[in-house]
């Protein structure tokens, strides 16, 4: 049986919604709340790259990032009625993407610990899943190797620092935007970033000495 979403098909949005302006976002949200399929399609088209790349930065796995991005848009569709516009639409999406990605990260690490434990007890004979290696052949070069090391170390930061660092240095968000996503102050974001950089440089320092 074919299943269709209870979305009304409305004509393509006429306003320039690709700009990300708050007024355009408000129009988009209003149309989404009325159940417009065109508005939902526009929302996905406009934000899919940002949501996906944020999830990818935190998970470093295309499959996991895809899963998170899909979850985010499903959640947006299901909870758009509760969006009151207190924050920007992009802020809300970044917040959903980062929290979902961190949830996936926790689930993966729990699964990995459990697999390690069962392998110790001999319950499972399969080998432990290794983190996917997305190294490009260019990674053989020194610079790319350092970049790969940096990405590994970013993955080991505490969650809040990791999100702040990723949003700042990969998504290029301002301190104010990061504060809005994390629901904290700009000073707290500065502190998170300072500690993140300090930790990363401390771990990468030996590598730097040999460059």
């Amino acid at each position, binding site marked *: 049986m074919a*299943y*269709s*979403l*209870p979305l009304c098909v409305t004509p393509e949005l006429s306003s320039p919604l690709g700009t990300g302006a708050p007024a355009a976002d408000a129009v988009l949200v209003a149309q989404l709340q009325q159940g417009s399929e065109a508005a939902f*399609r526009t929302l*996905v*088209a406009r934000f*899919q*790259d940002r949501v*996906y*790349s944020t999830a*990818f930065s935190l998970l470093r796995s*295309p499959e996991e*990032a*895809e899963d998170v*991005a*899909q979850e985010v*848009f*499903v959640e947006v*569709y*299901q909870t758009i009625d509760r969006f009151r516009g207190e924050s920007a639409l992009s802020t809300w999406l970044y917040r959903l993407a980062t929290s979902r990605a961190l949830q996936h990260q926790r689930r993966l690490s729990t699964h990995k610990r459990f697999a390690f434990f069962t392998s110790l007890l001999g319950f499972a004979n399969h080998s432990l899943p290794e983190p996917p290696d997305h190294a490009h052949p260019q990674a053989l070069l020194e*610079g790319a190797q*350092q*970049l790969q090391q*940096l*990405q590994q170390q970013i993955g080991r930061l505490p969650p809040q620092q990791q999100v702040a660092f990723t949003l700042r*240095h*990969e998504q*290029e968000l301002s301190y104010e935007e990061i504060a809005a996503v994390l629901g904290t102050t700009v000073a707290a974001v*500065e502190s998170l970033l*300072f500690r993140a*950089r*300090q930790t990363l*440089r*401390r771990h*990468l*320092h030996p590598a*730097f*000495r040999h*460059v």
Partner: protein
Amino acid sequence: MSDSDFHPGSDAEWAELLHQLQRQPKTQPRPFFYARVHARLAASQAQATAWLPAWVRRPAYAALLGALILAVSGDGAALRPAAPASPYGGYHLGQPAPLPPR
């Protein structure tokens, strides 16, 4: 905030590394992402109604179930026949029939 506790010679390298991180090509989802989101949304909505067994969701079966519950509930007051209108209506076997009025 100063980073004076770090190796002074590594500042430029660190800045270059961060710059390199920013310059990385942005990852994108595979083509037809919207179609996959749409399918997932449809699946999640179908799943939300799937907690009831399929036969319960058919109105004929639901009505039959309702009637069956009423029939076996033991409280048949609603289904009892009304009091007989004619004087002979309430006759039961083993009882003498009432006499007709004069």
